[in-house]
């Protein structure tokens, strides 16, 4: 069999495995197998490329490209695998952002090489391939720089959100410059114009991502993920490689749908996320300050008093948030829940769709702590139960229990479905301080007359509480 046919058959196999893998990935029971199938598909594709490049005699005689390919795969593969193994579950969103940035960067680099080939008169040079090269360069750079910014924001290297009317004006100007540069290239601007395009793309992606608040980063990462998919599809058009077109487009399409689903889970529209500049306002929004009123006093409670309170309850709903995860308090929280369960308390966990930093993130974190699956309830299931619940224990969560989402139209989280913790008979909030959470908005639940604040780092606080409950026995 000739190498070209052999590699094409292998590419076909990989495309089938990608589609089945994606299908499986969207079912809880088969998700892991789905990922493994996609990985096997990737193995087929890599083997196909080796057959195509080596068997097809693509390597220039006397060139060291073959060695560089293998070294490149080893270096990148080892770095990626090492990073992926080491990263903490809480830092998963940053990790995905970073890996996505790598993919976008690779697409932009490939487009650069292809454009240089066009400019030097090499390559086929049909209009579709030419257009795809420009598209890959712009969207690839957007993914690369945008993902790096998202990574920086989630890791806390960068200010949360910077926005101003002036900045919006600049964004429009840069967007026009982007179009002008493309026209310049179309008129034969050559490689200089192409580098200008890369520069303008960088500016544009910075201006797009800087104004978006940290709480919306998951949506941004998901969107950039589908952008990378499209950039990869574009390089597929430029290189005439159907395998890249299929896989890139699959990711582009499913990523777009996933982005819309995430927005739906947060009850936001995509335009609102991208252009509204959430979390950008002053730390205490006027609405929240007014709702808090003049009597803004929070009641504090000690571990011993809290243990006493917990000794006489029948039902407890735990509301875990990112603060719990970042303090690695999920294990000790489970310990507390187990102790109370042993005493006959009915313990449930209320998992908000966007608890943690991404939809579904909290499920991963609680699963890591071996919290029984039967104790996890989602928003619709648990909300009717708060009225009958003795204690709602809010650990490191903030925005997902903020009542202003129900009525305060000026609030950035207005309209987001929340957990009705304020309807419980008692509310305990474990938090480091009264400072607003990730979205940068005040929370009136801290000042609710039914609320007890239990200050401290989530892990230390719950450990103290566990000790106090033990002592009370």
């Amino acid at each position, binding site marked *: 069999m000739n190498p070209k046919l052999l590699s094409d058959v292998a590419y076909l196999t990989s495309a089938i495995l990608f589609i089945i893998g994606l299908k499986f990935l969207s079912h809880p029971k088969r998700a892991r197998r789905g990922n493994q199938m996609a*990985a096997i598909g990737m193995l087929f594709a890599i083997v196909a490329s080796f057959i195509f490049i080596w068997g097809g005699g693509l390597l220039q005689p006397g060139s060291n490209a073959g060695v560089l390919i293998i070294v490149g795969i080893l270096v990148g593969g080892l770095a990626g695998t090492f990073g992926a193994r080491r990263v903490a*579950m809480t830092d998963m969103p940053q990790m995905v952002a970073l890996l996505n940035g*790598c*993919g976008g*960067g690779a697409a932009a680099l490939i487009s650069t090489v292809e454009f240089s080939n066009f400019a030097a008169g090499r390559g086929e040079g049909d209009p579709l391939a030419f257009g795809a090269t420009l598209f890959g360069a712009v969207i690839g750079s957007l993914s690369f720089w945008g993902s790096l910014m998202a990574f920086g924001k989630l890791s806390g290297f960068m200010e949360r959100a910077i926005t101003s009317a002036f900045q919006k004006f600049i964004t429009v100007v840069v967007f026009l410059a982007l179009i002008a540069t493309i026209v310049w290239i179309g008129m034969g601007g050559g490689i200089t114009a192409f580098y200008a395009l890369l520069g303008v793309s960088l500016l544009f992606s910075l201006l797009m991502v800087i104004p978006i608040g940290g709480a919306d980063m998951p949506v941004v990462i998901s969107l950039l993920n589908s952008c990378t998919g499209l950039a990869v599809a574009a390089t597929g058009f430029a290189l005439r490689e159907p395998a890249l077109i299929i896989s890139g487009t699959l990711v582009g399409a499913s990523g777009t749908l996933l982005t819309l689903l995430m927005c739906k889970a947060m009850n936001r529209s995509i335009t609102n996320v991208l252009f509204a500049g959430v979390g950008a306002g002053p730390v205490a929004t006027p609405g929240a300050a007014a709702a808090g009123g003049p009597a803004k006093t929070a009641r504090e409670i000690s571990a011993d008093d809290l243990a006493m309170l917990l000794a006489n309850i029948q039902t407890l709903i735990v509301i875990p948030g990112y603060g719990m995860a970042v303090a690695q308090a999920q294990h000790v929280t489970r310990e507390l829940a187990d102790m109370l369960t042993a005493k006959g308390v009915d313990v449930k966990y209320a998992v908000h769709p966007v608890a943690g930093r991404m939809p579904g993130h909290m499920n991963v974190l609680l699963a890591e702590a071996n919290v029984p699956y039967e104790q996890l309830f989602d928003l619709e299931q648990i909300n009717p139960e708060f009225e009958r619940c003795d204690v709602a224990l809010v650990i490191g969560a903030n925005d997902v229990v903020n009542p202003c989402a129900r009525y305060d139209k000026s609030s950035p989280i207005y309209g987001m479905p929340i957990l009705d913790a304020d309807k419980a008979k008692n509310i305990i909030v474990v938090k480091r301080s009264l400072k607003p959470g990730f979205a940068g908005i005040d929370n009136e639940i801290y000042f609710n007359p039914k609320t007890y604040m239990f200050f401290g780092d989530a892990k230390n606080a719950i450990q103290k509480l566990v000790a106090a409950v033990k002592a009370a026995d």
Partner: protein
Amino acid sequence: MTEATLILYSIYIFMLAVFVGFEVISKVPVQLHTPLMSGTNAIHGIVMLGGMLVLARAETALLTWLGFAAVVLGAMNLFGGFVVTDRMLEMFKTKKPAGRKA
């Protein structure tokens, strides 16, 4: 096959892949959003193959190094993506009785 037919074929492929991509994940539950995002992220790691192609064909030193950088970045995306997704999904499988440390 003519040039135009080839181009049309790639547009066919693109169009069908758009529909398949939308269809295939249409009923994903919220708890799988994060792993699914990470899984699709791994799949576009296939960009590494594009890097391999341009590197193999590169005719100048500059283009060779750009291609090499593309292969490295693509490989990070590809291998890191699958490993990180697998780690996440592994968590979901441990539904054994509590007490077994993860």
